[in-house]
C-alpha cells in the first residue's frame, strides 16, 4: 500500500503533466487547426450578418425563428449535463463524478457560450443587445417582464455566470498545483495569479468546501430552471405543438439527455488519446450511459404525452400539427427524431453495449443528431403551418445558416482544445482526496 504523499504525487504528476510537460502532438495540432478554421468560418458568417442583416438566413414569415433558436436550444441543452454532473451528483454523494466533472463543466461553459451567440445575432441589430437589460436609459423604457424572452436573458446570463464561478472555484487549488509544478517563471506567475495565491490552508479549505457545496445547492435549481425558462419561450405562446404544460420537464429531461450524450462523445476520445482509461474508467462510461438511457426514457415519455394530449384534446389545429409533423413535408425530421432519441438508445439496456466505448460513441453521436432534429421539428413544423392556411410557408436553411451553426462547433472545439492543453482536465485536488480515501480506508 502506497503512503498518502506518494498517492498524491502520482495524481499531481499525471494530471499536471498533461498541460505542462506533454509535447505538442500532431493530433492535437490537427484537431485544433480544424476547429480554428471552423471558428473563422463563424467569424465570416457573423461579419456578413452584421453587414447584410438576418436576411442572409432562411428565416422569414411564418418561420421567423429558424436555425437561431434550434441551435440555441440545442447548445444550451448540451450544457446541462455539466451542471448536472458537478452539482446534482455532488449533492447526491456520487463519488464517480470526480473523474468527469471538470471536463463536463468546461463543456457546459463552452456550450452556453455557443448558445448565447444565436439569440444575440437573431436580434436583428445585435449591437443593441444591451436593450434587453434593465438600465436607466434616455428612452425611459423597461424590459417587458411578462415576456419569457426577457426571462431567458436573465436565466441564460445567470447560468453562464454561475457555471463560470463554479468551474473556476473548482480550478483554484489545481491552478496552485500548476503554479508549483511549472518550470518557467512566467508560467508560475501566471498560474499563481490565476490561483489567487492559494496555499491550501485548512481554514481556507473549510470555507472553500462550504462555498462549493453552497454553489452546488444553488446550481441545482438553476439548471432545472434554465431549460424550463427556455421551454416557456414556446409553451407560453398559443402556437399548436408549443402550447403545452409538459414542456418544462420534457425540455429539462431532453437537455440532460443530450448533455450526457455529448459528455460521452467528448470523454471517449479524450480518455483514449490522453491515456486516462484508469481514471475515466469503463464504469464511468457505464454510469453515464445509464443516465442517458434514463433521461432518454423521460424524453420518450414526453413525446408520448404530446401525442396523447393531441388525441385527447380533440383539437383540430393540434391534430393537424401532429399529422403534419408525421407525414407532412418535414416528416423525415420527425422519424429521424424518433429513431435517434427513442429507438436506438434502447440498445443501452444491454450491458455489452454500455461496456463497448466504440458503440457508445456512435450512439452518443446519434443522440446528438436526434436532439438537434427534435428542436428542428418543434421550431419549424409548428411555425410553418399554423391557424391560417393563407399564411403557411416553408423554411429552408441557407448557406449562412449552416456556416453559423458549423462555426459554433469551431468555437466549442477551439475552446475545448485549448482547455485540455492549458488546464488540468480532471480535478487534481478532488482526485487526490478520492484516491487517498480509496487506498487508505
Amino acid at each position, binding site marked *: 500500500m502506497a503512503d498518502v*504523499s506518494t498517492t498524491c504525487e502520482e495524481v499531481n504528476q499525471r494530471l499536471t503533466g498533461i498541460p505542462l510537460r506533454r509535447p505538442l502532438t500532431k493530433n492535437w495540432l490537427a484537431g485544433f487547426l480544424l476547429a480554428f478554421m471552423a471558428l473563422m468560418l463563424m467569424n465570416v458568417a457573423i461579419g456578413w450578418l452584421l453587414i447584410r442583416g438576418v436576411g442572409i438566413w432562411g428565416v422569414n414569415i411564418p418561420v421567423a425563428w429558424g436555425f437561431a433558436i434550434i441551435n440555441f436550444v440545442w447548445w444550451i441543452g448540451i450544457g446541462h449535463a455539466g451542471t448536472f454532473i458537478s452539482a446534482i451528483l455532488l449533492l447526491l454523494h456520487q463519488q464517480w463524478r470526480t473523474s468527469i466533472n471538470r471536463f463536463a463543466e468546461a463543456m457546459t461553459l463552452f456550450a452556453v457560450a455557443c448558445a448565447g451567440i444565436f439569440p444575440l445575432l437573431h436580434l436583428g441589430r445585435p449591437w443593441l443587445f444591451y436593450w434587453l437589460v434593465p438600465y436607466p436609459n434616455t428612452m425611459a423604457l423597461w424590459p417587458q417582464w411578462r415576456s419569457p424572452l426577457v426571462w431567458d436573458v*436573465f436565466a441564460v446570463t445567470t447560468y453562464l455566470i454561475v457555471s463560470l464561478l463554479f468551474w473556476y472555484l473548482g480550478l483554484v487549488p489545481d491552478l496552485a498545483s500548476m503554479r508549483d509544478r511549472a518550470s518557467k517563471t512566467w508560467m508560475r506567475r501566471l498560474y499563481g495569479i490565476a490561483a*489567487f495565491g492559494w496555499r*491550501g*490552508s485548512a481554514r481556507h479549505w*473549510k470555507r*472553500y468546501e462550504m*462555498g462549493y457545496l453552497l*454553489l452546488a445547492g444553488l446550481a441545482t435549481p438553476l439548471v432545472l430552471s434554465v431549460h424550463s425558462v427556455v421551454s416557456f419561450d414556446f409553451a407560453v405562446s398559443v402556437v399548436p405543438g408549443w402550447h403545452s404544460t409538459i414542456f418544462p420537464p420534457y425540455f429539462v429531461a431532453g437537455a440532460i439527455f443530450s448533455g450526457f450524450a455529448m459528455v460521452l462523445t467528448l470523454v471517449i476520445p479524450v480518455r483514449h488519446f490522453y491515456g486516462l482509461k484508469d481514471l475515466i474508467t469503463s464504469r464511468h462510461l457505464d454510469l453515464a450511459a445509464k443516465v442517458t438511457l434514463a433521461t432518454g426514457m423521460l424524453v420518450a415519455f414526453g413525446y408520448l404525452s404530446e401525442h396523447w394530449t393531441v388525441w385527447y384534446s380533440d383539437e383540430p389545429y393540434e391534430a393537424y400539427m401532429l399529422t403534419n409533423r408525421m407525414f407532412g413535408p418535414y416528416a423525415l425530421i420527425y422519424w429521424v427524431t424518433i429513431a435517434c432519441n427513442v429507438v436506438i438508445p434502447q440498445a443501452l439496456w444491454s450491458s455489452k453495449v454500455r461496456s463497448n466505448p466504440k458503440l457508445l460513441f456512435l450512439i452518443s453521436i446519434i443522440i446528438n443528431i436526434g436532439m438537434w432534429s427534435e428542436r428542428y421539428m418543434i421550431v419549424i413544423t409548428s411555425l410553418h403551418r399554423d391557424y391560417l392556411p393563407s399564411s403557411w410557408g416553408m423554411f429552408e436553411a441557407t448557406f449562412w445558416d449552416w456556416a453559423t451553426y458549423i462555426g459554433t462547433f469551431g468555437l466549442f472545439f477551439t475552446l475545448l482544445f485549448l482547455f485540455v492543453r492549458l488546464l488540468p482536465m480532471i480535478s487534481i485536488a478532488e482526485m487526490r*482526496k478520492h484516491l487517498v480515501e480509496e487506498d487508505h480506508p
Partner: protein
Amino acid sequence: MSQSSKMMLVAEFTDPEALVEAAEIARAEGLGHLEAYTPYPVEGLAEALGMEKTGVPWITLLCGLTGGALAYFMQYYSAVHDYPLNVGGRPLHSWPAFVPVTFEVTILCAAIGTIVGLLLLNRLPRLHHPIFETPHFDKRSDTRFYLAVEGRTEEFDPVKVRAALEARHPSAVWEVTP
C-alpha cells in the same frame, strides 16, 4: 516586536492523521497560533485548529435575499408605477410573471456573494505569504501536510514548540522567519 514573534515553526507530515493529531495536541498545549496546510480538505482539521463556523452560508443567504428582493421590487416598480402597460385589462401587479426573473437574480446574487465572501474571508487573492518561505513548500505543498505554529505573542518559545512538534514524528521541522 521581537524576532521570535515574527517567526514560525513548520512541521511537515506525510500523513493527514498525524497532522490532525499534532494539531489537536498543539492546541491543547497552547503552543501558539496554529495554521495547517494540506493538499486536499482533511476532515476534522479545521475543527482541530479551533475553527467552528465558516460564516459563508450567512453571506450566501443575505446576498440571495437582497438580490431577490431588489429584482422583485424592480419589476414591481417598473410594471406598476414607472411604466404601466395595460394588456387586456390584466392586473399591473402580475406577480406570477415576475417569479422567473426574481428567482434567477436571487441565484445570481447568492452565487456571486458566495465567491466574493469566500475570498474576503480567506483574505485572497494574496501575492505572497510567509508560509511560502518554508523550504520545499512550493514543491511539496500538494503532497505533504503542514502544521505551522506562528509566534504572534511574547510567550512564544521556539525551543519548547520545536520539542513538542518533534514529539509527533514529523518528516521535518522548519524554522521560518519572513
